[in-house]
Structures are given as structure tokens and as C-alpha cells.
């Protein structure tokens, strides 16, 4: 057995063997020398404990895996139904451009190759010209009065700057209204990329308008690729992907866009304005760029286009993602997921909370687990949130933002373990699983079956003591929860249970700890009264500590939900607590630092730059 060093902070936790539920601790690994060691199934989470274990000993615990993985599953099974993903195999929910996405990329590559050859070889260019001319001569030979009038009308309407401008501005307004910023950015980006690429390509190829046929109607610039057609194509395809939900609406949208483009292509070739190759290249550019952009940067599974009322933080857990969650939990935790249901969405904005129904395992019955799905959008939201708070309040949010979703989920898993290890009543951690590397992770923990949120539970003296004791233990362990609010406090059998360890801070400032105490007392007092809570608090805290807590707690120091609950309460609980505690001067929240000033200036500069960029590219956009 060869074990290296793992993260030191986990060492005591791992050695203690207390932190994972039984089902996750019972994986026995047989050592080459015949010895046995109780292993915590943390082989992937703690590199230091990746041990040399014979395949034969692992294979004996094999359990079912998904069908498409059955070949490798026979060799890769480890204890408890877990399975290591072999190198080269895609993750449970891979980024997927789809078959059509790959076809469009191939077409773009082909287009670029042909352009390169045409620029390099005049003979090839001439042969293309001759072929184009022959096709157009054939089309022009069927020109008739009424058909010409119709085609002129079609061309005039579809490539008019007004038509395209109205479509684009309408889409931009709709996306701003729907606050679908990622789709907005991709739509704008696609427009700019396609228009600039089409313009640069047209200058490079410098293809004149069709020969041999009389050109009917107006045109502008070189013909390859058709700039007017490219503008319409990218607009329509961008609209389809940014505005229409996947499924039937998007499918219809694609057909409608396709029919429109076919009509435009026929009209422009009929009128002799564009060659067939001009239209094809415009379509390739105009479709490929938005399709690849939207599929790659805003896949449906992660950024669904939906018109159902829902928080944007919540991801759709049906379809491919639902299947990926099942596969990932099975392979990485050895638990068979029977059902995935969103739960408590109204109280969560930073992740997608889920209830997982898992099948019975050795020694444990069929049960529910709680899970939180994190994606990169949550990391960005957290970053923006912290940036905004830093600008608004200075020292209020004094921790560095996370740089990746992996760090995000690793941190929560770590804090959950710390809390659990410190004896604070939090859900037992099961670890986390990878859905899409560096994009989506799912953290799994115990589901508090039978527990009630404190806002609806019966709160008696036992509950008050239990809640206050939670804060005392946090203080003793050198931790701060930082998000104590009714939604994060559950009550079961007279005990307060703490959920959501995401904001937990190790070795926090005294201010943070003081705020935790005040928030807990406020949560308890909302359900009882200030005097009673204060009396109980005096058993665990000194009067000065309570005074400090309420000197530190003002406005934004409390979570939004708690502030909202306090507003609905007819009493001024903060004032009541302050009156009960010894007098103490308020602790300042606003803190001006060089960093805060620099951040403010940077954000201002970026905003000005963004406005300038939009103004400068307005002709392209509109």
C-alpha cells in the first residue's frame, strides 16, 4: 500500500472515522498483504489516501451501472457500487454540442478551407464563378413579371435594416426584460462575430456580384458571404436559441427560420443579387456561430430557456441532467438514486436544493438525502454578490471570492465536515459528486426527515437552549455560520438543527461571531419573545457578549429572510434586546479601504467601457 500526503486539515477527520454515514464508511479495501483496513471511501477526495488495491478485491463488490458503461464497468467497480471513470470517458453530463453542432463546425472548417484555396488559386476561384454563373443563368431564365415582383418584395422586407434592426432590438429588450444576461451576451456576441467575420471574409475573397444576369434590387459590398443574408441568419438563429424553450417551440422556431432563409435565398438568387455560394456561406456562418456559442456557453441543461416562474439560480434536474445525477451518485458514492426532486426552492438562491430518494443499502433502509447542485452560474453569482457587498459595505464581506465551482463545493464539503466534527447538529456529509468537471457538482448530505423549519415549529425553552447552544459551540470551535435565518434552522424533537454550511467561516472575525449570536436570538425571539430568549442566553453568554452581538447587528448584517421576518413582526426585537443588554456603542459596518475604493473605480471604468463598446458597435447591433 502506498499512501501519500493528503490535505492536512482532513487528516484528523479522516482518522476519526466519524464523519460519514455508515454506508460510506463500510467500504473495506483488501490490502495486498492480506490485511484489512477500514477505509472511508475517500480515495478521490483525498489524494493522500489513494492506495494500491488489487482490482480483484475491488471487483467483488460490483453493482449495476448505466448500460452504456457496462463494458468498462466490469473492470472498474469498487466497493459499495462505486466506479472510477476511466481516462477518456466523458463525465456524467458532458458538454455536448450535439450532432448538428458538430456538423456546423465541420461546415465552417470546410468553408474556411475553401476560402483559403480560392484566395490562393485564381483558377479555382474562376471555376466557382463559372458554376455560380451557370446556376444563376438557369434561375434567371424563369423570371416572370409577377414572380419578380414577389421576390423583390421578399428581398426588400427580409434584408431591410428596419426588419433586422427591429428583430434585434426586440430580442435585446426581451432578454433584458427576462434578465437572461448570458443569452443576451451570447446573442450580441454572435451578431458581432458573424457580422465582422462576414465583412472580413468579403474583403478577403472580394467576390463581385453575379455576372451574366441582370441584377434586380439593391445590394451593398462584395458578395461572398452575403452580408445581408448573414445578418438575417444570425439574428433568427440567435432569437431561436435565446428566446424559445427547447423542445417543440424551438423546433418550430428552427423550421420557421429555415423556411424564411430558404425563401430569402431563392429570392436573392432569383434577383441575381447573390450567388448560391454567397448564400450558403452566409448560412454556414450565421448558423454555426450562434449554435456553437449557445450550445457551448449556455447549454439547455445549465441555462434553460423557460417561461415558468422560477429563480434563475435553480437548474432543471430533469432530462439529461437528472440521469447524470443518478449516474454520478451511483458511480461516485455508491448510492442508487430512485428519485430526484427539487425541494425548498423558495428559500434558496445560491444553488439548486434537491431531495434524493436513495435505495436501501447494507444496514440502511431506503431513505431521503439532501443535495445541492452547484454550477458555474452560482460561482459567478456569488462573486457578483460579494463584489457588490464589498463595494456597498467595505468590510462586511471580507473573504475572497471562489474562482471555480470545484473550490466552491469543496469548501462547503469541508465546512460541513468541520461543523459535523465539532459536534454541531448539521446534516451528516456524504461528500460531493462531479456531474460535469469544473462546471457542475452535487454535494450530498443527510436529509433531516421529520424536521420542521423554525418558523413553523413549536419553540419552547428546550428549543431556545438548543439554538443558543449551537452558537456557543460555533464560538468554541472557532466557526461562524454567517447565514443564520429561519430557513436555515430546523427543529426536530426539541433540538435546533443547522443547515446550509456554505457561508461558514473558520476563524472568523469577532464581529461575525457576534452577528451569529444576534441573528440566532432574533430567530428565536420571533417565535417567542425577547425577554425570554435573553434570559436563556445569559446561561451561555455574558451580558457583554450579548451587548456586543446587538451592537454589531444592524440592517444588512442579518440575512434578507430574517430582516423580512423582523419587518413583518409588530415588535422591534432588536431594540428590545438592546434595551435588555448593557449599553454599547454600535460597531461600524462601513469600512473604507484602498481595495474598496479601487474596486469602485474599476467597476465604474468597466461600466463606462461597456457603454462605449455598445455605442461604437451600435451600427452592427441595430
Amino acid at each position, binding site marked *: 500500500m502506498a499512501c501519500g500526503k493528503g490535505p492536512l486539515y482532513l487528516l484528523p477527520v479522516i482518522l476519526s472515522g466519524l464523519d460519514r454515514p455508515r454506508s460510506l464508511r463500510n467500504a473495506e479495501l483488501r490490502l495486498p498483504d492480506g490485511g484489512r483496513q477500514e477505509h472511508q471511501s475517500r480515495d478521490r477526495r483525498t489524494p493522500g489516501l489513494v492506495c494500491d488495491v488489487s482490482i480483484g478485491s475491488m471487483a467483488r463488490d460490483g453493482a449495476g451501472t448505466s448500460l*452504456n*458503461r457496462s*463494458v*468498462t464497468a466490469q473492470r472498474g467497480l469498487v466497493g459499495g457500487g462505486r466506479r472510477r471513470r476511466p481516462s*477518456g*470517458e*466523458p463525465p456524467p453530463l*458532458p*458538454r*455536448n*454540442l450535439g450532432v448538428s*453542432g*458538430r456538423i456546423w*463546425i*465541420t461546415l*465552417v*472548417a470546410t468553408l*474556411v*478551407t475553401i*476560402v*483559403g484555396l480560392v*484566395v490562393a488559386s*485564381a483558377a479555382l*476561384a*474562376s471555376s466557382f*464563378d*463559372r458554376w455560380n*454563373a451557370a446556376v444563376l*443563368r438557369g434561375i*434567371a*431564365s424563369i*423570371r416572370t413579371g409577377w414572380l419578380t415582383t414577389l421576390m423583390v418584395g421578399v428581398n426588400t422586407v427580409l434584408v431591410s435594416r428596419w426588419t433586422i434592426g427591429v428583430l434585434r432590438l426586440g430580442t435585446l429588450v426581451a432578454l433584458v426584460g427576462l434578465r437572461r444576461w448570458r443569452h443576451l451576451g451570447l446573442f450580441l456576441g454572435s451578431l458581432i462575430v458573424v457580422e465582422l*467575420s462576414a465583412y*472580413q*471574409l468579403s*474583403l*478577403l475573397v*472580394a467576390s*463581385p*456580384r453575379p*455576372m*451574366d*444576369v*441582370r*441584377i*434586380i*434590387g*439593391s*445590394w*451593398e*459590398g*462584395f458578395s461572398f458571404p452575403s452580408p445581408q443574408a448573414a445578418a438575417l441568419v444570425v439574428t433568427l438563429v440567435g432569437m431561436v436559441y435565446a428566446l424559445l424553450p427547447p423542445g417543440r417551440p424551438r423546433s418550430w422556431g428552427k423550421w420557421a427560420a429555415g423556411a424564411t432563409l430558404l425563401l430569402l435565398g431563392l429570392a436573392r438568387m432569383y434577383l*441575381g443579387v447573390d450567388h448560391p455560394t454567397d448564400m450558403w456561406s452566409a448560412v454556414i456562418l450565421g448558423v454555426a456561430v450562434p449554435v*456553437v456559442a449557445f450550445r457551448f456557453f449556455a447549454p439547455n441543461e445549465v441555462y434553460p430557456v423557460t417561461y415558468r416562474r422560477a429563480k434563475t439560480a435553480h437548474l432543471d434536474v430533469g432530462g439529461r441532467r437528472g440521469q447524470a445525477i443518478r449516474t454520478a451518485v451511483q458511480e461516485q458514492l455508491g448510492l442508487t438514486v430512485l428519485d430526484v426532486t427539487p425541494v425548498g426552492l423558495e428559500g434558496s438562491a445560491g444553488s439548486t436544493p434537491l431531495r434524493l430518494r436513495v435505495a436501501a443499502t447494507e444496514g440502511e433502509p431506503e431513505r431521503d438525502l439532501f443535495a445541492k447542485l452547484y454550477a458555474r452560474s452560482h460561482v459567478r453569482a456569488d462573486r457578483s454578490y460579494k463584489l457588490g457587498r464589498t463595494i456597498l459595505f467595505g468590510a462586511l464581506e471580507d473573504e475572497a471570492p471562489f474562482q471555480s465551482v470545484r473550490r466552491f463545493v469543496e469548501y462547503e464539503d469541508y465546512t460541513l465536515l468541520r461543523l459535523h466534527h465539532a459536534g454541531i447538529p448539521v446534516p451528516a456529509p456524504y461528500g460531493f459528486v462531479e456531474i460535469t468537471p469544473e462546471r457542475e457538482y452535487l454535494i450530498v448530505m443527510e436529509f433531516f426527515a421529520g424536521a420542521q423549519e423554525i418558523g413553523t415549529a413549536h419553540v419552547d425553552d428546550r428549543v431556545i437552549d438548543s439554538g443558543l447552544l449551537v452558537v456557543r459551540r460555533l464560538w468554541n470551535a472557532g466557526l461562524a455560520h454567517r447565514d443564520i435565518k429561519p430557513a436555515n434552522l430546523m427543529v426536530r424533537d426539541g433540538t435546533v438543527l443547522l443547515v446550509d454550511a456554505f457561508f461558514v467561516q473558520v476563524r472568523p472575525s469577532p464581529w461575525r461571531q457576534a452577528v451569529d449570536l444576534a441573528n440566532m436570538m432574533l430567530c428565536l425571539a420571533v417565535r417567542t419573545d425577547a425577554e425570554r430568549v435573553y434570559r436563556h442566553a445569559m446561561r451561555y453568554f455574558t451580558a457583554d457578549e450579548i451587548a456586543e452581538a446587538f451592537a454589531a447587528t444592524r440592517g444588512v448584517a442579518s440575512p434578507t429572510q430574517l430582516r423580512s421576518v423582523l419587518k413583518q413582526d409588530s415588535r422591534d426585537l432588536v431594540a428590545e434586546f438592546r434595551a435588555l443588554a448593557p449599553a454599547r456603542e454600535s460597531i461600524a459596518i462601513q469600512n473604507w479601504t484602498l481595495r474598496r475604493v479601487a474596486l469602485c473605480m474599476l467597476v465604474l471604468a468597466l461600466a463606462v467601457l461597456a457603454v462605449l463598446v455598445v455605442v461604437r458597435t451600435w451600427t452592427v447591433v441595430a
Partner: protein
Amino acid sequence: MSASILRGGATRACRRLVVAAAAVLVTMVVSGCGASQYDRVSCTSNSRQSIFVLEAQAVPSATLMPCANPLPGGWSVGGFEVRSGLARFWLDSDRAGARAGEARLTSSCDVTGATQLPPTAIHGGPPVQRYETPAAQQPPATVRYYLFPGGCVTYRLGFSRQTAPALFDQADQFLGFTTRARYVNGVRRNQRSTLCGAGAPPCTG
């Protein structure tokens, strides 16, 4: 090999294809595959990327087309625009500023009020009638019109002989003409096609 592994390989291949295509495109655009602005409008240009065939299509009746003679230091071709019914290019000067000069080809011009100048002859082309708008009408600009069968070139300078005599003498030499017939013949010879309009046989449709 499982289907999922194949899928992963296909995704990687696609990614490489995208990167390769983008690299080729960017390289072609920025590495000089594209002609300079001057080469596109130069009277002596033989570049396939010149705008003259397109100019001939924009104003199919015009028997002559404007082009730029060699420019002295301090002058450059700022850009061009060709669309149905109109072709123009403009010149930037480090002293007279951007768009200090502009040559515009249309099928006709209104020369009412302009003073007629002695006509000039273009080698191999039709005679050209010249007009100039009195300076008082367009201070401090100078506007000249060159009329020939099927077309008119408006040459506008953002200064006058009086305000910038040295610049004016330079700019007076920049405007040249090339014949449509040259491109009609070139297209017929190289592409076996007809550049519809003046000097060419009737086109289909």
C-alpha cells in the same frame, strides 16, 4: 470502445477543428492575404481584390470609373463603399484630416451652377466634361464633377486652392480613371462571363 468514449473523442475533434478554423481565418485576415485599401482602388492595381468590377456592377452604365493615382506621403486611402447605384472611395490626409478627399461615382450628377472647365481625355476612354462648383458655394471645400457617357464622378476636397494651395496641388493629381471596357474584357476572358452593362452584350433576365 464504448459509444461514450467515441462521443468524447468527437467533441475533442470538434474543438480542435474550431480552433484550427479560427486560426486559419484570423491568419488569413491579418497576415496580408487581404489587399491594402490603396491596392483596391489604385489605377495601376492588378489585384483580384480591387473594387473595379464591383464598381462596374454598381453603376453599369458608366464607361469610366474613378481610381486613385499614386499618393504622396501624408495621404492614404481611408476606405471605400460600393453599393448598387453608387461607388466611392475617400482619402485621408495627415494635414487636412480624415476624408479630406472623396471620389464618388454615380450614373448622373446635377451640375447646375457649376462652372465648366476645359474637357480632358482619358487614355482609351471617352472624353470627360469637367465642372467645378464656385468656392463661394461650398467654402472651404472644392467640388468637381467629371461627366462622361453613362456616369459622373464627383470629386470633393475638404479645402480649396485658396485655403491650402500646396495640398490642393497635390490632391488635384490623385483622381484617375480606368475604363469599364478593361474589366468587361477581363471578365469575358478570365471567367467567360458577361459584366452586364455598358460595352457588354445584353444579360439574361
